[in-house]
C-alpha cells in the first residue's frame, strides 16, 4: 500500500488530477503537509480520515476556495493555480459543498444555472433555463418544481438540489464533501446511482466521507489522510474495515497530559442527566458526571455531542428529560432551560468559538476575567473588579500578556482560551462544560490548558467536554462516552481506551462490540 499504487483497471492511463507536495497553514494550524497523490478519470476516489485530518481543506484547494502555500495541483497534466471557485469551475471541477451554497431567494432553476445562465439576445433565457433545470432534476430523479425558491425547501431537499447542481455543471471532476450527512435512505440511493453514472461517463469523482459503508460500497480507490499528511492511496478492494480504521488512527500521546487520579469511592455525583433529549429527533441520553472527574463526549463531528453540551448549558432548550445537580433522586436543583439559569446553578460553559461566543474581544483581560467575579453582583452594584485576584489567576494560569489591561483580541489563541477558563475559575462555578478545549491553540498552551482543567477537577469540580481530537479524549478524560447519531453507544475508561476502540464505536456504533481488535 504505497502512494504510487494505481487503481485497479486503469494501470496505463495518465492521472487526471495530481496533487504534488501540497501544504496549507491556517494561522497556527498546519492543516496539510506535503500531500501528494493522483486521481484517475472514470474512478470514484474516496478521501477519508479522522476529523481534522485535512480532507476538506485539500478538496477546497482543488475547488479553488483556498490556494496552497506550497505545492501544485495538476489537471490533465498541466499545472493550475485557481484564483477562486469560478476559475476551478472553468477548469471543469464541480463541487458539492457540505455547507449548502444554494441561494434562498433564487428558484431551483436559477440556482442550478447561476453563473452560466442560458442566454437569448443577451438576456437570460428563462424558458430554456427552466427546461434544462427540469432535465437535470429528472436525471437525478428529484421530483421538485424548478420554480420553487430554494429557501422554501427542507434541508434534505436542499441537499438533493445541491447534488443536482454539481451534476448540472459541465465537469470532468466532481467533488462530494460529506454528501450523505443530511440524506435519507432513498436520497442516498439516488446519489449512488448518480455517482455510478458519472463514473461510467468517465468523470473523476472525489468522495469525502468517513462513513465506511459508503466507501466500501462506492469507491474504487481510497486515500487516507491523517493529521494533514498523506497515509496511503490504494485500491479499496485491498482494504478491510479494520485495516482502514487503523490507517486512520494511531499516534503517540506523549506527556502532554497531566496524570489522572485514582477514582474516589462514595457518592459524589455532580450532575445527573436522565432521559435527556437535547434536540428534536435525537434519542434520549442518560449519564452522570462525578466530582473530580473529566468526562469526554467523543465521536465524529456532528453526531450530537455539541447539542448535548449546549442543551445542558441552556443555549438550546431540550425537548425532554432532566439535568440535575447531584444525585438524580435527591431533591436537587434542576439546571438548564436558560443560560442564566445554568450559570446560577454553578455551571460554566466554554464555547468552541471563543472569538464570537466566548470573549469580549474589545475588553481587557482584567474585564474579561472580572466579569466572572461579578456574576452574582446586582445590576446596579458598583462594578469593582478585584485586580489582585485577576493578577493571581493570570499568574497561576501562566497567561502570557503585557499586563492585565491588555486587550484579549491581541492575545494568542492559547492565552485567550486561558482567559476564558479564568473567567469561570473566578466565578466559582463547580461544573464546566467545555467545547473543543484546545481548538486553534498551540501545543505548548495545550498542555497548560489540560493542566488547568485537571486542576479544576482535582479541586472538586466536574468537567464535561467535547473534542474532535480523539487523542485529547484519550489523554485527558477519566471516562469517554462515545456518541453516534445522538446516542451514547459506549462508555470507555479513559486510561484503558485506545484510539481504535473509540473510532470503531464512533464509526460502527454498538455493533462494534466484539469486533476483532
Amino acid at each position, binding site marked *: 500500500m504505497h502512494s504510487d499504487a494505481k487503481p485497479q483497471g486503469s494501470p496505463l492511463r495518465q492521472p487526471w488530477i495530481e496533487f504534488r507536495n501540497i501544504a496549507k497553514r491556517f494561522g497556527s494550524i498546519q492543516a496539510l503537509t506535503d500531500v501528494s497523490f493522483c486521481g484517475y478519470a472514470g474512478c470514484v476516489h474516496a478521501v477519508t480520515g479522522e476529523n481534522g485530518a485535512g480532507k476538506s481543506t485539500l478538496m477546497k484547494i482543488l475547488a479553488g476556495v483556498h490556494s496552497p502555500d506550497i505545492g501544485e495541483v495538476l489537471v490533465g497534466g498541466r499545472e493550475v493555480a485557481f484564483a477562486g*471557485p469560478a476559475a476551478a469551475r472553468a477548469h471543469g471541477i464541480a463541487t458539492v459543498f457540505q455547507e449548502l451554497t444554494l*441561494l*434562498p*431567494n*433564487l428558484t431551483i432553476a436559477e440556482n442550478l444555472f447561476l453563473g452560466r445562465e442560458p442566454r437569448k439576445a443577451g438576456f*437570460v433565457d428563462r424558458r430554456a433555463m427552466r427546461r434544462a433545470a427540469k432535465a437535470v432534476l429528472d436525471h437525478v430523479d428529484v421530483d421538485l418544481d424548478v420554480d420553487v425558491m430554494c429557501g*422554501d425547501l427542507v434541508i434534505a431537499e436542499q441537499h438533493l438540489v445541491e447534488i443536482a447542481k454539481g451534476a448540472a455543471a459541465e465537469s470532468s471532476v466532481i467533488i462530494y464533501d460529506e454528501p450523505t450527512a443530511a440524506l435519507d435512505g432513498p436520497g442516498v440511493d439516488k446519489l449512488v446511482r448518480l455517482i455510478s453514472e458519472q463514473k461510467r461517463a468517465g468523470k473523476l469523482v472525489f468522495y469525502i466521507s468517513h462513513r465506511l459503508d459508503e466507501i466500501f460500497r462506492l469507491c474504487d480507490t481510497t486515500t487516507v489522510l491523517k493529521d494533514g499528511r498523506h497515509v496511503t492511496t490504494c485500491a479499496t478492494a485491498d482494504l478491510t474495515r479494520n485495516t482502514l480504521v487503523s490507517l486512520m488512527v494511531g499516534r503517540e500521546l506523549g506527556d502532554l497530559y497531566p496524570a489522572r487520579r485514582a477514582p474516589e469511592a462514595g457518592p459524589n455525583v455532580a450532575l445527573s442527566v436522565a432521559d435527556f433529549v437535547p434536540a428534536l429527533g435525537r434519542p434520549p441520553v442518560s449519564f452522570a458526571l462525578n466530582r473530580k472527574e473529566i468526562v469526554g463526549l467523543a465521536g465524529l463531528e456532528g453526531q450530537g455531542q455539541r447539542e448535548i453540551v449546549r442543551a445542558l448549558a441552556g443555549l438550546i432548550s431540550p425537548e425532554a428529560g432532566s439535568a440535575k445537580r447531584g444525585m438524580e433522586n435527591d431533591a436537587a436543583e434542576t439546571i438548564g432551560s436558560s443560560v442564566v439559569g445554568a450559570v446560577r446553578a454553578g455551571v460554566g460553559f466554554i464555547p468552541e468559538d471563543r472569538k464570537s461566543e466566548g470573549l469580549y474581544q474589545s475588553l481587557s483581560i482584567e474585564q474579561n476575567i472580572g466579569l466572572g467575579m461579578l456574576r452574582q453582583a446586582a445590576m446596579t452594584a458598583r462594578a469593582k473588579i478585584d485586580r489582585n485576584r485577576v493578577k493571581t489567576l493570570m499568574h497561576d494560569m501562566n497567561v502570557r500578556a503585557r499586563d492585565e489591561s491588555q486587550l484579549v483580541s491581541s492575545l494568542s489563541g492559547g492565552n485567550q482560551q486561558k482567559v476564558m477558563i479564568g473567567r469561570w475559575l473566578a466565578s466559582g462555578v463547580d461544573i464546566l462544560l467545555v467545547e473543543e478545549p484546545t481548538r486553534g491553540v498551540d501545543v505548548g498552551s495545550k498542555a497548560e490548558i489540560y493542566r488547568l482543567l485537571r486542576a479544576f477537577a482535582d479541586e472538586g469540580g466536574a468537567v464535561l467536554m467535547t473534542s474532535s481530537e480523539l487523542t485529547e479524549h484519550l489523554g485527558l478524560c477519566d471516562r469517554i462516552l462515545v456518541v453516534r447519531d445522538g446516542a451514547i453507544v459506549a462508555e470507555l475508561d479513559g486510561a484503558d481506551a485506545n484510539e481504535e476502540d473509540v473510532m470503531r464505536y464512533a464509526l460502527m456504533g454498538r455493533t462494534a462490540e466484539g469486533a476483532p481488535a
Partner: protein
Amino acid sequence: MTAHRVRRFGRSGLGFVSIGLPIVMFVLLSLTAPEFFSLENIGNVNNQITALLIVALGQLMVALIGGIDISVGSVVSLTSVLIVSLDPSLAAPAALLLGATIGVANGLGVAFFGVHPLIMTLASMTFVQGLALLLLSGAGGTVPAPLILMAKSSVGEVPVAFFWCVAVIVGATILLNHSRLGLRIFAIGGNAQSAELSGIRVLTPRLACYTLCSLAGVVAGIYLTGRIASGDPTLGQPFGLDSVTAIALGGVQLSGGVGSVLGAVLGTITLGLIANGMNLLGVSPFFHAALTGVLLLGAISLQRRKVIGI
C-alpha cells in the same frame, strides 16, 4: 417529496401592506379631498414623484446587494450645479462621468476595502455636497431651454414626466428580471459567500449597483433642474433618505436579496400621495413629516420581516 409550494410574492418583498397602502391612500384621498381625483392633480403627483422614483430605483439596486447609498442626494445636487455652470453641450456628459466616478468610488470602498456602506456613502455625501456648494453657493443660474422642455412639457394631455417614469421603470425591470447582472445581484444579496462558491464573481456586480445608483442620481438631477428651471446646490438633500423610505415602504429588505421594481414604484407613489394629500387638505408640512415617520414604522412592522430565510 412532491413539493408544490408556490410562494405568492417570491423574492419581490411585496406583501399586502406594500400593495394595499397606496390603494387605501388613493381611495381615502378621493373621498376626503374633492380636488384630488382630477387629471390635473394626478399629473401633479406624477411630476412630484418622478425624481424620487428615479433615485429610489437606484437605491433599490444597492439595497438588493445589502447596501445603502445616502450619497445619492448630493449627486442630485451636484448635477444641478453642473447643469447651470458648464457649457450646455458638456454639462450632461460631465455630470454622468462624475456620477459614475462617485459610484465606482462608493462601490470600491464598500466591496473592495470593506468600509461599511453607511460610512462610505456618508463620507462621499459630505464630500460631494461640499463640492456642489463650492461651485455654486446658492440657487440660481440659467438652465438650457431644451432641458426645461424635456422636463416640463406634455405630449397631448400626458405630461412628459410620465414618459421619464416609464423609461426608468422599463430599464430597471429589464436589468433586474431579464439580465444576468440582475440574477447575480439577487444572488449576492441572498448570500455573497454562497454566490462566490457557486462560481460567480462578486466584486463587479457590487460596483455596478453603486454606479447605477449614482447614475440614477445624475438622471434625477438633470430632470429636476429642468423642471425647476434653476440650479440649486441643495436640490437633492431630501433624496438620500427619502429614497430609502420609499423602497422600505415597498417591501424591499435592506439586508439584501429581497425587493422589486414594483415595490420601489409603489413605495414612491405612497410617499407622493401623502405629500399631495396633506397639501390638498391644508395640513402643516411639519405634521406631514411626523406622519411619514409613523407610517414608515407602522408599515415595516406589518410587513413580513422574515422573508425566505434571509
